[in-house]
């Protein structure tokens, strides 16, 4: 199986490749990709250099251009696709219908993957993207069970890629309005779930208090495990009950499910975390490469101990091992 690994910086790209990534995904330092954080991402020159480094070691580079262009301002996104092609990228990861149409028309030889931001979670949607825009691979949303993924794969002709580690989005991806409610900005249009300029941490009464857009979203005792400052992982009080309304502060770890995902027809395993450091990338990629190598060799995959690296320091297999009520 192909291991698709995150890189927020050229150093992280090298760490991913050196640690055994089959493919690395990254994005430009602007609003065209869904990890648009300060200090992160690639210039055009850095991407070209990164592609050269990856190709020299037999790895591919996929460029995420997976936010939704603003009407009347498509030039930035069109330019990003052209520059990815020019840099020698092996594929672009797109979500927007218009951008997919543009890429199919103007860059027909550039392989197109459908971003998870498109939230294509059934055969009809996937087959539409494949037929209309020549999409070759679909990144599936993190809301499907392994059995549902197997059923989808039986009805489509394109490759599927699934997340196996990292941040766990349980929303209809690309449609989430939580950040917009609190900050007026959204991951779909601006590229970040919680824009850092709206995040505030304060030490209040022995507690680390996190606010997003002025709203308190959780309080943790100093020194205790803390989640990312996203509304979906917030801890709220309602009717005298306090808890995580949307999702617990946990990360996805589907390492134990990799053999079942392979049998379900999945082509590629994706690791989330372009906002993380090269230390994270190196450790996770090395661990998952041991899993895919074992699978390839017909051995039992090794058990991984990666919870420490996870948000909330705990992990879940998410929707893969359960069905929705």
């Amino acid at each position, binding site marked *: 199986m192909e291991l698709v690994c995150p890189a927020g910086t050229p150093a992280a790209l090298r760490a991913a490749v*050196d640690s055994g990534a089959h493919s690395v995904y990254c994005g430009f330092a602007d609003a065209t990709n869904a990890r648009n*954080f*300060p200090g992160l991402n690639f210039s055009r020159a850095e991407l070209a250099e990164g592609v050269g480094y990856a190709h020299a070691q037999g790895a591919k580079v996929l460029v995420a251009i997976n936010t939704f262009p603003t009407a009347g301002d498509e030039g930035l996104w069109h330019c990003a696709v052209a520059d990815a092609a020019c840099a020698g990228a092996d594929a672009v990861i797109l979500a927007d219908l218009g951008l997919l149409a543009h890429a199919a028309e103007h860059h027909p030889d550039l392989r197109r993957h459908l971003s998870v931001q498109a939230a294509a979670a059934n055969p009809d949607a996937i087959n539409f993207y494949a037929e209309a825009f020549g999409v070759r691979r679909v990144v599936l949303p993190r809301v499907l069970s392994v059995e549902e993924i197997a059923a989808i794969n039986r009805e489509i002709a394109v490759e599927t890629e699934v997340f196996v580690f990292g941040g766990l989005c349980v929303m209809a991806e690309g449609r989430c309005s939580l950040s917009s409610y609190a900050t007026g900005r959204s991951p779909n249009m601006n590229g970040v779930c919680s824009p*850092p300029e709206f995040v505030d941490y*304060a030490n209040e009464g022995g507690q680390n208090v996190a606010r997003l857009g002025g709203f308190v979203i959780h309080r943790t005792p*100093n020194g205790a495990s803390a989640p990312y400052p996203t509304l979906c992982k917030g801890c709220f009080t309602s009717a005298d009950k306090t808890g995580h309304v949307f999702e617990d502060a946990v990360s996805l770890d589907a390492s134990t499910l990799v053999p079942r995902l392979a049998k379900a027809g999945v082509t590629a395993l994706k690791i989330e975390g372009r906002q993380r450091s*090269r*230390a994270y990338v190196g450790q996770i990629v*090395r661990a998952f490469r041991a899993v895919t190598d074992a699978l390839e060799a017909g051995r039992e995959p090794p058990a991984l101990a990666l919870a420490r690296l996870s948000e909330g320091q705990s992990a879940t297999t998410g929707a893969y091992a359960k069905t929705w009520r």
Partner: protein
Amino acid sequence: MLAARGDVSIPRILILPMRVLPLWPVSLGLSALARRILQAHPEILSRIDKYQSKGFALDITDLPFALHLDPARAAVRAWPRGAAPPADARISGTLAGFLAMLHGVEDGDTLFFSGALQIEGDMSAVLALRNALDDAELDLGAEVQRALPMLAPPLRAAIARFERLTGLPLRRPDLSEVY
């Protein structure tokens, strides 16, 4: 074993002199090192971008003094704890944690998740600084040796010995051995 989890403390025998000695040599030495690093790695300031003019309080909790980083001026100043000037952003953690992050041994988000690292203030500036330093793949031990080439061989040996004795990651290790 390096302080891969940032949970190694500075030996108490080293803390005592730090409490009584003047802080200006620390400021001079760290500022010289910062200038050298920024000259050798101009991409750091490119990545920090518009946050260069921000002031960062580096609250190294196991040191008896606090540091104030001013990227635009390549200045690092040590202040008595409690007397440091206001900063746009504050990052608090152990020296081992800071060094492990700088050398690519430890992930900043992991330290944050575990409660070993606290951040306050301008989050955009914190992220820009963190990402810029992570991309630079710094090696403080090598930078110190390059700054003092005549003393490089004994410095190399001293840094390695100090690293073994304290567990503090003072150099960028071969990461394939760490992971």
